[in-house]
């Protein structure tokens, strides 16, 4: 029995609905519905391993600036975004922090670190 998966392509505004057909072992049998080769590649990657960059904030111990913006240093599995947020909810960072500093290494055991995307000083200058 083969199984059909549908992936909405984001390569261009056409937004093709690409159909990926796989066999019982998850091996791809066919791909259709795309209109270019970039779309085919995107749909295959998205079917096999959908990943996203997580962007969020963590609490700070700075008086004037309550939040520090953070990101995952590389995309993480889409299915782990909400789980990651529960980890971030338990974090409070102390200034000073520089943009690029690692806040949580190897987030949820993935190969991505959670890093600061802004500086945090204990005053108003968060650039």
């Amino acid at each position, binding site marked *: 029995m083969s199984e059909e998966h549908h992936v909405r392509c984001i390569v261009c505004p056409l937004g093709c609905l690409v159909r990926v057909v796989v066999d019982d072992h998850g091996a791809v049998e066919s791909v259709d519905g795309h209109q270019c080769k970039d779309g085919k590649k995107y749909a295959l990657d998205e079917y096999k391993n959908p990943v996203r960059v997580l962007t969020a904030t963590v609490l700070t111990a700075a008086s004037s600036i309550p939040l520090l913006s953070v*990101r995952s240093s590389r995309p993480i599995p889409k299915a782990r975004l909400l789980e990651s947020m529960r980890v971030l909810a338990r974090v409070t960072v102390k200034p000073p922090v520089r943009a690029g500093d690692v806040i949580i290494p190897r987030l949820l055991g993935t190969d991505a670190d959670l890093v600061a*995307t802004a500086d945090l000083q204990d005053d108003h200058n968060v650039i």
Partner: protein
Amino acid sequence: MSLDNLDLVVVGAGPAGMAAAIGARESGVQRVLILERAEQIGGLLHQCIHNGFGLQYYKEDLTGPEYAHRMAGRVADLGIDVLTECMVTGISPDHVVSAVTRKHGYVKLKPKGVVLSMGCRERTRDAIGIPGTRPAGVLTAGTAQRYINVEGYLPGRKVVILGSGDVGMIMARRLTLEGARVVAVLEILPYVGGLIRNEVQCIHDFGIPLLLSHTITDIHGQRHIEAVTIAKVDERMQPIPETSRVLECDALLLSVGLIPENELSLSAGVVLDPRTGGPLVTETRQTSVAGIFAAGNVAHVHDLVDNVSLEGELAGVNAARLALGDELPRAGIRLVPGENIRYVVPQTISGKNDVTIYVRVKRPEQKVRMKAGQFFEKALRVVEPGVMVKLDIASRYLRSIPEGTEEIVVDCVPRTEGQSV
């Protein structure tokens, strides 16, 4: 920092203003001053904590704060003066810039040139006229973004979002990640307003209901919003009463469009284009007032920050040329929006130099040719209003324009069979 003998004053330190100052400084003018209302430079980028910025300008996938950090670093490296907590209150046609500042009180500056880079503001409930009570909890998506990403407040736990622009969709994801439930995202048009990337990664990824051809017909709640009435709309965008239903919510976010911020431009006598809501600009980004330039969202609302910065840089470079005594090319040819075109920027060109034109279409269309008069055309697989079309026109195409041409019509027309992309 001296406020005298300035070559250039840049109003607003967002991605357009910072790039303008950098462009001007790199072109050799010494005395560039950026005026910024906030306590720090960077503009709205600070609250746009998501990624997707800088793919063109920096060839990297940056978040808003990272993009701001990088550009602010360049501003600092070049030794460009910045005056924060400075609110410009007026600009005269002969470039007298009046401002109130925390540091110097009320000041009047007389630079050789000015770059307008004030950005844009959000349309509010009043701009679209939603009936109903006027409770707390109805706010623009950008305000909610500031609350959530900068100030640390969640504006609601059960949220309806009106409008499928990029900010609205991005807020749908942020709210979901922060533990709120997004009841629905409503869009009055039959298609999504923002980028497809955001539709997939902000809406579909989290299974958020997206209701196209829907709008809000009533807001309920006395002190705080309690619910909205929604309805499907017909082809004329009129609500169909029998489709009405009530959605409970404790917050309503509006993502219903942006308006270029041009009160200061008007005070300087700058002529606006009713189509863009921003100043009429030439290919150098000079406005109708000599020595006053405009770039970024003040000129027309962009979907990508990269283009904002590219335009800012262009304005800065040309403002510098003028300040250094160069003559700018006379832009005698008007670019006129034609078939399925909402607007074209710049509105005038010289016809002598390579030029990039930005075009916003009126409605989605597939398999089209973008044409500028008889001398340039480009086939595109798809166009839609949420995605600005950028056409790079090399000067060799412009050579075929007859001398004395006053206007060129830009059209988006269907491609006839047999032509390929």
